[in-house]
């Protein structure tokens, strides 16, 4: 956990006081809506279909139990008792009154959290691997660099008025759990001849024009991270389009210039500014690294008796363990995913009671640390293996132990037309119906790894483009229809899904998804061949045929 200092705390308090004054002047009419709107957006306050929505930033997805309790308290006191975790590791509250927002923000500022730069044309939350600091396959903890980027990008005066929003993601592991290839800038920490650096990718993104990011630098030594990012942002700030909101992201600039020309511009700018004040020397990195408090891990053995016993005697526990528990880099420990995708539930939501309970369990079993995954689940990164049986029982009791992580009912869905003023169709009811259709634990385990993503409109906040099955809601004559894409991937082999065929009406979408799954089950070479591998081997035709067979 990064420990904020006096500077951070004072800054947040002053920022809340500033917003409180702005709200007061808006309510009195001293500020009109045109003047106020950009100010509220700078604090993460949207106006949605039914109410204001506050998006709270969770820097690189890391929360302390204290912070999670504060979120629960805000949900209870100012909202309707729940929050929604997002695909950018943030949390959203859907019902807070404008007049009460300053108080809610003050409560959050007291524990070091806020909504700054979660909206608007600025650099947003830098996201990373929810298993950072725990994963066996990581080179080093990427959160150090995510924190460096956070400090550099927060209130960066030059980049407060970008052509459009800007999203950075970073991973340091062999398996990319942060979808870096579909971000404006993706950073992959790597080593070369014993030196640490980054592969730098630009121009990835989803939305109405999806692109996979292009590598413009194979190896950027770590001390140049900020100066190089500065060069990228300057190139974008200067040349990104401001004439058309739908062509304003960096992905369009990279596409229109070509990767080579874009890279040339970045390198030219970088040549001017490298080796200056933004250089990250070891002292700078150490100062930030020192403020990360990492758990004092006990020296423990793998598979202690109590765990072995539970695995042997309790099939339900064994199923959950096989699904939701991952190996940890420290012996005797494990990474636990808390599924926020219960059967029939809205994906990614947690009640205030659940948040409080999870905070307590984090204190008891997980060194007080919680992570938010972009799949809209939560993670305890540091759990002792001997505590797993006891922890599981308690997670089950609060409804966050559905053994569906990474499976077909671990659905990523945007809020959709139930909440969002941009949406064309609802996504949550589809997700709920799918979890009900595939409610059987054994069945979904047999189907295996399957990433299903639902977006309620072309803005693709549900990341449907990179779902193995992607579902996009559209509206035709006031009826909801759903387009299906197949074969998308968000990891290191990222690719955009292909359109399967004509959109299907809401009444048929669950049946069609089931037919796609059944097609896979019939045609897979063995249970070891995953859904996505089968799609890649067979192509779309067999799936298309079966999906539309009865129409």
């Amino acid at each position: 956990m990064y420990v904020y200092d006096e500077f951070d705390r004072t800054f947040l308090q002053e920022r809340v006081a500033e917003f409180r004054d702005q709200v007061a002047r808006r309510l009195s009419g001293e500020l009109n809506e045109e003047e106020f709107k950009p100010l509220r957006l700078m604090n993460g306050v949207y106006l949605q279909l039914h109410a204001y929505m506050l998006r709270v930033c969770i820097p690189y997805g890391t929360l302390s139990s204290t912070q999670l309790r504060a979120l629960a308290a805000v949900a209870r006191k100012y909202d309707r008792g729940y929050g929604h975790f997002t695909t950018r590791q943030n949390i959203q509250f859907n019902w807070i009154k404008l007049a009460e927002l300053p108080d809610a923000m003050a409560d959050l500022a007291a524990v070091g959290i806020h909504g700054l730069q979660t909206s608007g044309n600025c650099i947003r939350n830098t996201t990373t691997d929810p298993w950072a600091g725990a994963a066996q396959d990581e080179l080093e903890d990427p959160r150090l660099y995510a924190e460096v980027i956070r400090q550099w990008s927060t209130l960066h005066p030059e980049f407060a008025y970008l052509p459009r929003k800007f999203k950075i993601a970073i991973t340091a592991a062999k398996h990319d759990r942060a979808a870096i290839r579909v971000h404006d800038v993706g950073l992959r920490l790597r080593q070369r001849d014993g030196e640490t650096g980054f592969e730098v990718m630009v121009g990835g993104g989803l939305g109405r024009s999806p692109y996979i990011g292009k590598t413009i630098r194979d190896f950027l030594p770590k001390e140049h991270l900020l100066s190089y990012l500065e060069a990228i942002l300057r190139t974008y700030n200067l040349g990104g389009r401001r004439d058309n909101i739908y062509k304003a992201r960096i992905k369009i600039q990279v596409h229109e210039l070509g990767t080579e020309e874009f890279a040339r511009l970045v390198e030219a700018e970088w040549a001017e500014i490298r080796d200056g004040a933004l250089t990250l020397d070891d002292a700078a990195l150490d100062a930030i690294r020192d403020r990360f408090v990492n758990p004092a891990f006990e020296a423990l053995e793998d598979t202690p008796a109590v765990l072995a016993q539970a695995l042997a005697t309790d099939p339900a526990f064994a199923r959950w363990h096989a699904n939701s528990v991952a190996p940890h880099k420290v012996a005797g420990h494990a990474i636990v995913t808390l599924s926020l995708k219960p059967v029939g539930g809205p994906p990614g939501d947690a009640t205030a009671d659940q948040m409080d309970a999870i905070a307590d369990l984090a204190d008891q079993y997980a060194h007080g640390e919680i992570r938010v995954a972009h799949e809209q689940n939560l993670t305890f990164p540091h759990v002792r293996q001997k505590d797993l049986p006891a922890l599981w029982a308690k997670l089950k009791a609060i409804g966050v132990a559905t053994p569906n992580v990474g499976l077909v009912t671990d659905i990523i869905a945007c809020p959709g037309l139930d909440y969002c003023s941009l949406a064309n169709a609802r996504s949550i009811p589809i997700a709920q119906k799918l979890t009900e259709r595939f409610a059987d634990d054994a069945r979904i385990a047999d189907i295996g790894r399957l990433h299903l993503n639902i977006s309620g409109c072309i803005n693709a906040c549900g990341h449907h483009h990179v779902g193995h099955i992607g579902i996009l809601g559209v509206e035709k004559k006031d009826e909801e229809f759903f387009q299906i894409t197949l074969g998308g991937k968000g990891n290191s082999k990222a690719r955009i899904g292909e359109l399967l065929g004509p959109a299907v009406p809401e009444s048929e979408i669950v049946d069609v998804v089931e037919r796609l799954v059944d097609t896979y089950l019939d045609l897979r070479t063995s249970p070891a061949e995953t859904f996505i591998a089968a799609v890649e081997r067979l192509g779309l035709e067999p799936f298309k045929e079966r999906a539309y067979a009865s129409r």
Partner: protein
Amino acid sequence: MTSPLQRKLKITGPTVVTANRLADGVVVWLTADGRWAETIGEAAVAGSSEAVHALLDVAHADENTAVGAYPARVDIAANGTPAPANLRERIRVGGPTVSLPGAA
């Protein structure tokens, strides 16, 4: 900035003006006497472009009470009151179609 008199609005049937209340974001509809009501049944119904413009002018002059006003088509129910004419407006009237997690 186009003059309100020159703004073209395609009015295809009975139309109301709806917005979100400034202080709390609650969905509201403009009434005939210039208030913002919480129920669509109280909304003033306009049938022509000029009438909708007139309602919008009232709405935009009152952005201290409600913001983001726009015209929305309605159907007229048997008892003569306006009802939402599409899914989006039905959701704005009725709230999310999914039950909310946690105590309200």
